[in-house]
């Protein structure tokens, strides 16, 4: 690689994906790229993604972004987990936390000891009481996790909930300050090199022609470059994930400012509730096969906790992904590469790993197929694993109160998920992944929260005597309660650490 080969990168589309990409490229590859982003104020952004995963902290840190500044600018709150209501059955409630159960250490998983006690009918606290993350969230407290790995206060993580319409402008400032150039306007044409089919340039509405070496498609669902120009096929997953609309509406916060995203199952989908510093975000994600758009909007307005602050806004989508996200010299990031409903806050995460993988496999002017194939392997794996994880939430239900729930309860599921479910049902064993976003603790939280109870357990958990284990469990519960009680309230922490700059 020659040091003087600067590559011209053209990013199509602003919004979260476009500006995250531009900012990361200029900050992390300063002498290697020339970044130009084209966007049109006339085209709205989706900008509904409001909750995130802990990985976003590493992304921000790598770009030298201060957490407090970022949280104040985006009016963010902390997120320690997601509360699922009415999923396995109406009346159920469980939290999928960021963090471990018990102390999270040891060669035999903590939940195996818990299963042993349950199966032996020994009284034991619920697993939700044995998770630091769950308790911090449920009691609406917050403090940064301890760096001391021997402390129970180190066994949880956190992410953010923020106003997505403010995140893109924040990243735009970072990107432009580091040298990215923004061009306002609409793309009306795309030209390709006659032999290779690589994208050569974009033609703008005002006649300007923009050339580039590498094109990043952040044009959203329309997938202008990858989908429309290069014709990359779309793998449709709507038979497993039938939701195809979301109606979103902010309201005044009228209940607690929790470090939790709340996800409540509905007759034909589910409803999110995300508290931010200035308002609460809400949405009903649903399937038009089972409910109409009007009925869903009405149901949302009836369900929100406080005064609506805008009219309901409708979004359409199809669950699935492009067969490949990187084809020729075009890399799709964000909604242009695929979409999975935000049940586990994965959209911005998928954008982030696309950007990270692109930077780690950043090509030379002559793109090597090996880099491109590895990128696609990583991205496809993330999508497919998340897809299976989401399907689990629907399929592991006893609900039979509407045709929607009958459908998801009885549909056939991917073999990859069926195998994992069978393994867990037998003896609570979770497939150990090295890659992919959701690791053991997440799968365990959802399996047990959804009522998938194993018949057996890991025999190695039979070692210690039952009464010693029972005392150990009570001790963990007490440790957690004491640690949580010593934390400030979530709202109090925010007011001290990162209050938003304008009053609303």
């Amino acid at each position: 690689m020659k040091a003087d080969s600067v590559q011209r990168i053209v990013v199509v589309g602003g919004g979260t994906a476009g500006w995250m990409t531009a900012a990361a490229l200029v900050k992390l590859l300063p002498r290697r790229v020339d970044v130009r982003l084209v966007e049109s104020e006339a085209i709205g952004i989706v900008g509904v993604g409001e909750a995130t995963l802990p990985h976003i902290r590493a992304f921000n840190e790598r770009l030298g972004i201060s957490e407090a500044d970022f949280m104040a600018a985006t009016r963010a709150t902390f997120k320690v987990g997601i509360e699922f209501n009415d999923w396995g059955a109406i009346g159920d409630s469980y939290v999928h936390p960021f963090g471990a159960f018990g102390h999270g250490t040891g060669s035999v998983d903590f939940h195996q000891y818990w299963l042993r006690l349950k199966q032996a009918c020994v009284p034991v606290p619920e697993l939700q009481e044995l998770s630091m993350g769950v308790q911090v969230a449920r009691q609406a407290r917050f403090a940064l996790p301890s760096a001391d790995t021997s402390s129970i206060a180190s066994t949880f993580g956190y992410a953010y909930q923020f106003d997505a319409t403010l995140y893109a402008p924040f990243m735009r400032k970072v990107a432009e300050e580091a040298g990215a150039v923004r061009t306002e306007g609409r793309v009306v044409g795309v030209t390709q090199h006659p032999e290779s089919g690589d994208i050569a340039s974009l033609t703008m509405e005002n006649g300007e022609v923009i050339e580039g070496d590498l094109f990043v498609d952040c044009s959203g669902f329309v997938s202008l470059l990858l989908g429309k120009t290069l014709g990359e096929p779309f793998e449709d997953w709507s038979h497993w994930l039938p939701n195809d609309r979301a109606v979103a509406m902010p309201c005044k916060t009228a209940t607690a400012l929790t470090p939790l995203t709340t996800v409540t199952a509905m007759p034909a989908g589910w409803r999110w509730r995300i508290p931010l510093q200035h308002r609460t975000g809400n949405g009903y994600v649903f399937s038009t096969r089972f409910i109409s758009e009007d009925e869903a909007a009405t149901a949302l307005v009836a369900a929100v906790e406080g005064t609506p602050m805008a009219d309901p806004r409708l979004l359409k989508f199809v669950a699935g992904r492009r067969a490949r996200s990187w084809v020729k010299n075009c890399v799709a990031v964000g909604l242009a590469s695929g979409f999975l409903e935000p049940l586990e806050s994965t959209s911005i995460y998928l954008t982030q790993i696309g950007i990270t993988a692109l930077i780690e496999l950043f090509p030379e002017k002559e793109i090597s197929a090996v880099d491109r194939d590895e990128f696609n392997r990583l991205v496809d794996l993330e999508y497919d694993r998340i897809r299976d994880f989401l399907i689990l939430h629907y399929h592991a239900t006893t609900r039979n109160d509407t045709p929607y729930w009958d459908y998801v309860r009885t549909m056939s599921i991917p073999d990859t998920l069926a195998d994992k479910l069978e393994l867990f049902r037998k003896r609570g064993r979770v497939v150990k992944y090295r890659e992919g976003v959701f690791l053991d603790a997440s799968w365990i939280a959802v399996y047990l929260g959804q009522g998938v109870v194993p018949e057996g357990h890991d025999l190695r958990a039979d070692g210690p005597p039952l009464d010693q284990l029972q005392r150990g469990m009570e001790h963990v519960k007490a440790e957690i309660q004491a640690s949580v009680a010593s934390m400030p309230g979530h709202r109090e922490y925010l007011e001290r650490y990162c209050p938003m700059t304008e009053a609303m």
Partner: protein
Amino acid sequence: MTEDRRITEIVVAGSGLVGFSAAAMLKRKIPGATVTVVGTAPADALSERIHATLPSVVGFHADLGLEEAQVLMGTGAAFRLGTLFEGWSDKRPGYVHAYGEVGRSLGVTPFHHHWVRMAQESAARGKPAPFDSHSPAAMLGRGGRFVHPQGDPDSPLSTYEYGLTIDPARHRE
């Protein structure tokens, strides 16, 4: 699993090093089971003739409740930090594959990328030292020395693992 579906009798066929290792671990980890070892060791088993083990053997012994000093005294085993490959690459010197980190990451980028960059741009500066010279374990091994991994996470002496060179017959006993 209900009590009556539990396995209570395990038979291990083959009394070589592999058979006894399996029997010892099963006995220790499966509560309430009897373990019987039958048969002879295979006459020319590979595992009876190979002396090198990987760092996993250290964890295996610990899991069996064995003290390392006890193992070394009882079997005459020695430490091993890796493998020296001589003559495998035509014009290049021998290299050590050691069990541990080589160099240190600079920022988020793994060390080997920096080494590769130096090797490629060596015309101006001269070639960097051989890759394995940046590995504490490899250099200890080449020098015929050994210490247990130690020190805080920043110390180069904390970044490697070790296996054992064993005498299979004595180990089996």
